């Protein structure tokens, strides 16, 4: 497997970095560029930008934020939220995004996955999944930032999306997100064991122990962190050192 990636996730509303709990209730944290620069300088392996209201209001206003980021930040950028078409993907790649994360639009029209993968490559097409536990060992996919049920089984959906050409999965636990109580390890394991593409675990990171657990027991290839970084509960260099000490292969910065 590749070195584990430590990814900083920035949820955006309008011009602001925000932080939510259970993908809802929002607190404005400030200028996303300031946070992004800090994470880049502290050795973030990648950044993820998610526009969390774009889908609700039918717009994607991330291009300015992404362009600013790409102006000064030279690690991979994944951008999502309200991406509905190949044209939307193109607009984001032109301003410096490397990968695009798609959820709602892919569920509405799965062929979009293939269209994006064929035109820009599978590695560019990240399937964003919001998963909520509905029974032991079963999760339902949600859209619109954890608001709308789809009746889709997450494990079936990720299998299908991989066949259609998705190159990576951004897997967010609606239940754990913002709680700092750890990832939904069973969810990550259920998904990681049925696909051959990389899986990014998101939602619930509170301590380095959570990270070690979701990698060793869950099989995550990468971990996306938001709350613990934005609230400065723990910094990236400490997380990287803890991962190394736990015997995980991470980039040495």
């Amino acid at each position, binding site marked *: *497997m*590749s*070195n*584990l*990636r430590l990814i900083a996730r920035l949820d955006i509303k309008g011009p602001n970095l925000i932080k939510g709990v259970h993908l809802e209730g929002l607190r404005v944290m400030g200028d996303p560029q300031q946070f992004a620069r800090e994470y*880049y300088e502290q*050795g973030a*392996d990648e950044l993820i930008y998610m526009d969390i209201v774009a889908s609700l209001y039918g717009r994607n206003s991330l291009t300015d934020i992404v*362009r600013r980021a*790409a*102006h*000064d930040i*030279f*690690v*991979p950028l994944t951008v999502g939220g309200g991406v509905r078409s190949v044209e939307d993907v193109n607009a984001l*790649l*032109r*301003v*410096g*995004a*490397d990968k695009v994360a798609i959820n709602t639009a892919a569920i509405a029209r799965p062929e979009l996955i293939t269209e994006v993968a064929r*035109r*820009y*490559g*599978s*590695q*560019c097409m990240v399937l964003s999944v919001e998963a909520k536990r509905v029974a032991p060992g079963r999760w339902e996919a949600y859209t619109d930032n954890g608001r709308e049920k789809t009746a889709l089984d997450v494990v079936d959906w990720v299998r299908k999306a991989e066949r259609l050409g998705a*190159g*990576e999965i951004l897997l967010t636990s609606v239940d754990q997100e913002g709680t700092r109580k750890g990832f939904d390890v069973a969810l990550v394991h259920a998904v990681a064991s049925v696909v*051959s*593409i*990389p899986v990014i675990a998101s939602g619930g990171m509170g301590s380095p122990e959570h990270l070690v657990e979701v990698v060793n027991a869950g099989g995550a*290839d*990468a971990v996306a962190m938001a709350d613990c970084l934005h609230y400065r509960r723990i910094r990236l260099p400490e997380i990287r050192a803890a991962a190394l000490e736990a015997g995980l292969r991470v*980039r*040495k*910065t």
Partner: protein
Amino acid sequence: MSRAVTVVDYGIGNLYSVTRALEVCGASVRLTASHEHIEDAERVVLPGVGAFADGMIGLAQRGQADPIRRFIESGRPFLGICVGMQLLLDVGEEFGEHAGLGILPGRVTPVPATGADGRPHRIPHIGWNVLVPPPSAPDWGGSILASLPAEPAVYFVHSFAPVPADERQRLADCYYDGRRISASVRAGNAYGCQFHPEKSGPAGLQILRNFLQI
């Protein structure tokens, strides 16, 4: 003094990041979406993300393939990134067999789906991996890989990789679960990087800076 670089736009990939990274390293960048400004350039960068076949079609549609060949033959500094590196080889196997530019002998083949121990691993190969000198141990000094920190890690994202027929044209390798991958190649002043220097943080920027000094 800023170094002039022509970056070739052949219809695929994120040009903004490679342009910005070169600028940060002191280059003045000119983008060309046509066959112009290639043959008379001081140095040329061929970036790219996506499929090998689409890359060759893009170059052909814009009449850029022959100017690129002639530029490389002139011995001026050239850097191919990701698909831009793969296109230097004879043949690519993605979505069928397709001819490349034929500058470096060899083929572009799938990254093996299992590690050296036979266990499956993730494809694409995505993430940071460490550059190591190949067994021929070329001198990295004076190349684009000069002055890097020990065990330099750079960012890879690919499902196919070039296999140079001539060992001496390998500049750096990396290992993915024990599978050897050609990470960087060199033929005179023509360089290729399978990884993305414009996405590899400070180490990547150092590589681009080195390229501007060639």
